[in-house]
């Protein structure tokens, strides 16, 4: 493999037409702990698994409010995520100040993508090592976007990124046709079910390592508190994905 000849910096193409530095940056996202998002006609739900560096440490938060109508979940380098988070928040504040309305979601994701792309076309810079799931609501509807270190962005009905996210995506492929008409509670339970597929055998979901954020047409972005998380995790035991109701 002659990868090492073409992977020193962003300004070198490989003969196969790849920018290896950008691909390596996407690897960093895959190493981050899982976060996923799913949406219905009215709500977007973000679920993440929080990592604890050691017994002595706290859990790393993975979801951040950008504005009342928008939030992100991150996977990858948290420090890079902080930079993008601050940028998005500032853009939303300035937009609100000038236009007295909420920043359209797709437009802000586009700005983040532009910023990310810029880092992939310079000899002296490196790409951001973080992928974002952007949940937002604007007059165009309910949105879930994914951004990449490459500067690409995509809109999704549901998506999972990070470590072992394929398991969650497989769950989504089976059930996403139900999400559009799901209630908020059903959506949260689907999200947690998908999250459960992606954890290791010796791990379990609890109110400390799970983070759930919800956003709705009439609901500002909010995190579920510890008690609510506990209740949902209990409900998870009897949740039937097909019928979307609790069964014994």
């Amino acid at each position, binding site marked *: 493999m002659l990868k090492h000849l073409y992977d020193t910096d962003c300004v070198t193409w490989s003969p196969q037409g790849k920018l290896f530095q950008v691909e390596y940056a996407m690897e960093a996202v895959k190493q981050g702990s899982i976060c996923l998002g799913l949406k219905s006609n009215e709500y977007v739900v973000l679920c993440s698994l929080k990592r604890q560096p050691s017994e002595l440490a706290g859990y790393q938060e993975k979801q951040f*409010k950008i504005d009342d109508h928008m939030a992100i979940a991150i996977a990858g380098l948290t420090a890079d995520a902080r930079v993008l988070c601050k940028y998005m*928040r500032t853009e939303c*504040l300035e937009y*609100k*100040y000038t236009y*007295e309305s909420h920043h359209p979601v797709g437009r802000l994701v586009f700005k983040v993508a532009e910023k990310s792309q810029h880092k992939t076309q310079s000899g002296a810079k490196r790409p951001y090592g973080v992928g974002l799931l952007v949940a937002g609501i604007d007059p165009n509807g309910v949105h879930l976007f994914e951004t990449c270190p490459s500067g690409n962005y995509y809109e999704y009905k549901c998506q999972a990124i990070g470590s072992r996210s394929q398991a969650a995506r497989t769950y989504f492929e089976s059930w996403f046709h139900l999400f559009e008409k799901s209630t908020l509670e059903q959506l949260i339970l689907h999200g947690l079910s998908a999250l459960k597929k992606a954890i290791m055998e010796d791990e379990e979901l609890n109110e400390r390592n799970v983070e759930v954020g919800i956003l709705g047409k009439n609901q500002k972005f909010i995190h579920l508190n510890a008690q609510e998380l506990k209740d949902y995790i209990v409900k998870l035991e009897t949740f039937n994905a097909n019928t979307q109701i609790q069964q014994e």
Partner: protein
Amino acid sequence: MYIPVNDMLKHFKQDAPAMANITHKSDQWSPYHDNSGTVLAVGIPGAVIVAGDTRLSNGYNILSRDATKLSQLTDKCVLATAGQYADFIALRKFLQQRLQLYEFQNEVQASTETVAHLLSRELYSRRFFPYYTFNLLAGLDENNHGVVYGYDAIGSYDKMTYGVQGSGQELVVAVLDNQLKGYNKINKTIPQTREEILDIILDCFSCAAERDIHTGDNVEILIITAAGTERIVKPLRKD
């Protein structure tokens, strides 16, 4: 050095300008307009009540009968402003933006005391082209007791139990001094309950609307408690 007395006296006596030299530039354009109206705020243990009329005027003209002078900045505090409406909007926008940034950076909403100081600094930053706003910041302190801060146009502020600003200020503040503090009152019963104080506030606005042409239409009242915000709107004279 010997200074002749007359020269010295020149520094103390201001010569009146000769009548011929005075040119009145009364038709020069002014960036300021007084959109008038009255606001008041009263702090009591456990709550703060803020009220403002909803009439917007310019000279003898009414611009709107339904314009709010109150702006809730955080869960616990409200800005009430009399003066120039455009400056109120600009000030409110600045504070809303700045307080949202504060909340992102500190992961908690700014306390009323913090907002009070922020407002003072912002007003003073425009010392040489002031916001034509006469503000009251009403909110709950750290113990959830009602507190009112009153400001001048350039940011001098002080904590008070109640305050009034605007075109009806003189009419209303005398009534509140009498009713809430018992000044010059023969029967010194001070109202204790929220309902009594609300009645007094409604009466104050009715009185102000009687005598002040710039006050009237509706009075909008916000009651802030730890449990949340309640909003009441009552009609006033429309003439």
